[in-house]
C-alpha cells in the first residue's frame, strides 16, 4: 500500500515538473515576455508576405475596381428598382449587391467570378516556392511541428481574405448609406454578414485546392495553371456537359412526356449541377441576398398553393441554404485534408 502511495506521489511530482517546464514555453497566444507560439509567428510572416506581394495588390485593385463598378451600376439601376417595387419588397439595401443596369454584372455575381481567382492566386505557390527558395527545410529544422506550416499557410491567407472582404462589403454598405440615404435594417445587415462569410468559405475552397496543387507540383506556374484549369472546367465545361447529358435524356417531344419524367430530369440536372462549388455558392448567395427566393428546386402547384407571397425571414433563408453551406464546407475540408496529408508525407529535401 505504501509503495502504491509513494508511486502516486512520484507521478504527481513528475506531472508538476512537466507543468512547470511547460509554463515557461510559449503558450498558444503568446506570453507576457513577447514570445508568441511558433504557429502565430508563421501566420504573421504569411500575412506580411501576402500584404507585401504584388500579386495581392493586383488582386485587391481588381476587386476594388469591380466593387466600384458594380456599385455604380447598382445605384443607376436603383431608381427603376424602387419605382417597380411592390409593397412587400422592402429590402432596398440588399439590392445594392444584387441589381445591375445591364451594363455590368452585379456585385455578388462578380464575387462569384473573382473569388476563385483570389483563392488560387493566394495559394498556388504556398509550399513549392518555399521549397524552391530553400526556406522550407530551414523552417522545418526549427523546433516546430510540420503541420504548423501548412496550417499557418491556410490561416494566414484566410485572415487576409476575411479582412479584405469585410472591409470591401462595409465600404459598399457605407457608400450605399451615403448615396441612398436608407440605412440597412438589422435583417439586411445580418444577411450581408452571412453573405461575406459565405464568400470567405467559397474562397477558402479554392485556396485549399491551390495549396494542394502547390504541394503536388514543384513549379508554381504549373500549380497556378492547374488551379485555373479546374476553375475553367467547373465554370464553363461542366455545365455544358451536364446540359448535353440532360438533352440526351430528354424526350423528343416535351408535350407528350409525363410530368414525373420531366421532374426527374429536372432533379437530375439540379443534382449534377450541385456538385459544383460555384453552383452551391451562387445558390446560397442568391437566397441570402434575395429574400423572395423560397426554394432552390422545382416547386409543384400544390406546394405553392396557399403560400403568401413575401420575403422569407433570415432564419428560413439560412435553413434553405444550409445544405449548400454544408456542401461548400465539406469541399473545403476535403481539399484541406488532401493537402495536409500530402504535405505530411512529403519528403523534405533542401532544394
Amino acid at each position, binding site marked *: 500500500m505504501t509503495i502504491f502511495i509513494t508511486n502516486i506521489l512520484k507521478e504527481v511530482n513528475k506531472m508538476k515538473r512537466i507543468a512547470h517546464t511547460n509554463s515557461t*514555453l*510559449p503558450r498558444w497566444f503568446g506570453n507576457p*515576455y*513577447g*514570445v*508568441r507560439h*511558433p504557429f502565430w*509567428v*508563421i501566420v504573421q*510572416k504569411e500575412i506580411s*508576405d501576402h500584404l*507585401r506581394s504584388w500579386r495581392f495588390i493586383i488582386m485587391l485593385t481588381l476587386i476594388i475596381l469591380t466593387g466600384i463598378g458594380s456599385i455604380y451600376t447598382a445605384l443607376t439601376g436603383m431608381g427603376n428598382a424602387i419605382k417597380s417595387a411592390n409593397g412587400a419588397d422592402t429590402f432596398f439595401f440588399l439590392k445594392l449587391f444584387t441589381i445591375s443596369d445591364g451594363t455590368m454584372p452585379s456585385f455578388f455575381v462578380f464575387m462569384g467570378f473573382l473569388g476563385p481567382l483570389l483563392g488560387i492566386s493566394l495559394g498556388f505557390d504556398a509550399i513549392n516556392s518555399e521549397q524552391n*527558395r*530553400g*526556406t*522550407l*527545410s*530551414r*523552417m*522545418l*529544422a*526549427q*523546433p*516546430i*511541428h510540420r503541420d504548423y506550416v501548412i496550417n499557418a499557410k491556410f490561416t494566414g491567407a484566410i485572415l487576409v481574405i476575411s479582412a479584405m472582404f469585410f472591409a470591401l462589403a462595409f465600404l459598399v454598405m457605407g457608400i450605399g448609406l451615403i448615396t441612398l440615404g436608407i440605412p440597412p435594417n438589422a435583417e439586411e445587415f445580418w444577411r450581408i454578414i452571412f453573405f461575406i462569410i459565405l464568400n470567405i468559405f467559397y474562397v477558402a475552397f479554392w485556396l485549399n485546392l491551390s495549396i494542394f496543387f502547390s504541394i503536388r507540383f514543384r513549379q508554381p506556374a504549373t500549380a497556378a495553371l492547374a488551379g485555373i484549369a479546374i476553375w475553367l472546367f467547373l465554370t464553363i465545361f461542366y455545365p455544358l456537359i451536364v446540359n448535353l447529358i440532360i438533352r440526351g435524356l430528354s424526350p423528343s417531344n416535351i408535350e407528350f412526356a409525363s410530368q414525373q419524367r420531366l421532374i426527374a430530369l429536372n432533379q437530375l440536372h439540379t443534382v449534377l449541377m450541385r456538385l459544383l462549388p460555384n453552383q452551391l455558392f451562387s445558390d446560397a448567395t442568391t437566397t441570402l441576398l434575395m429574400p423572395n427566393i423560397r426554394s432552390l428546386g422545382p416547386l409543384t402547384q400544390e406546394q405553392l398553393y396557399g403560400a403568401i407571397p413575401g420575403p422569407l425571414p433570415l432564419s428560413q433563408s439560412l435553413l434553405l441554404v444550409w445544405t449548400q453551406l454544408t456542401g461548400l464546407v465539406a469541399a473545403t475540408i476535403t481539399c484541406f485534408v488532401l493537402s495536409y496529408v500530402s504535405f505530411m508525407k512529403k*519528403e*523534405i*529535401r*533542401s*532544394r
Partner: protein
Amino acid sequence: MDNTVIELVNLTKKYGSFTAVDGLNLKISKGEIFGLLGPNGAGKSTTILTILGLTEPTSGSVQVCGINSTSYPVEVKRKIGYLPEDVGFYDNRTGLENLMFTAHLNGIPDIEATVLAEQLLEKVGLSDSLKKKTGNYSRGMRQRLGLADVLIKNPEIIVLDEPTSGIDPNGVREFLDLIVGLSREKGLTVLFSSHNLHQVQQVCDRVGIFINGKLLGVGNIQSLSQQLFNNQLFVVEVSVSQPPKINVAKVSVAQLQKILLPIHGIRKISIENDVFRIESDTDISAEIAKILINSGLILSYLHKKEYGLDDIYYQYFEGGK
C-alpha cells in the same frame, strides 16, 4: 556518463528498391568535429535528415542526446542547428529580419533576439549588411548568414550539409575557420558533411567515409590510413648523387643496393626519373638517411611517402564501386 551525443544504430533508409543508407552505425561524442565524407548521392543528406527527424528511417534508430529523433523530432530540433546545402532565405526581407524569424520560431523573446541577432551578424562579419535584403547577398554572405541563423537558437550540435559548395577558396577558408573557432569556443559538436576531402582534412577531428549508403571507415586520418594500408609497404623516395670528386655521373640501382645492404626489410629498389623508390616492410627512412650520408654520397632529397586522405578517399572510392 557516456558523452555520446549522436548515436545511429543500424540505420537503414530505402526509397523503393533503392537503399540510400544501409545499416549505418555511428557514434559522435560531445565537442568533436566529425566529417562525413562521401561523393554526391552517397546518402549523407538522407542521414542528416534522419538525424533531424525530418525523414523516417526504414529501420534502425537515431538518438540525439538520448532522445529518439523519429519519435520526438521537436525536442531534437531544439538541440540541433541545421545548415542545409545551399540555404535559402526570404529574399525580400533583410538579413536581420530573416534571423528574427528563426529566433521567434525558437521562442526567443523580442528584445533578446534583436541583441543576439546583431551580435551574431557581427561575428560572421555581416554587420554592414544587416539591413540589406538577402536577395542582394552573395553566395558566401548567404552561407555566413546561414551560420548565424543556425547559431541563434543556441544549439548543442550543429549539422552542416555541404556548407562550402559554391564559395570561393578564400571564403571557404574564412568559413571553416569560423566553424572551428565557434566549436572550440562554445564546445559545440559539429557534424560536417562534404565531398571535399581537403576541407574535411583541414577541420575535422574524426572522419567517416561514406559511400553508397555504407560507412566504410571511421577514425582520424592516421587511424584511417592504418586501417586501410596496414598490409601495404612503406615507401621512401630518395635522390642521391656522386660526390664531385668521382667522375661517374650517376648512382646505379646496384650501387645503392650494395650500400643499403645492412638495413633489413628492404623489398625492392627501383629508379624513376633519377629518384629511387625504396619499398620496405617497416619505416626505415631514418636509417636510410644515416647510411647514405655515411657512405659519402650526396643526399639531395628524401621523402617518406605518407598516405593522405586523398589516397584513402580514392582507395575507398574504388573499393566502394
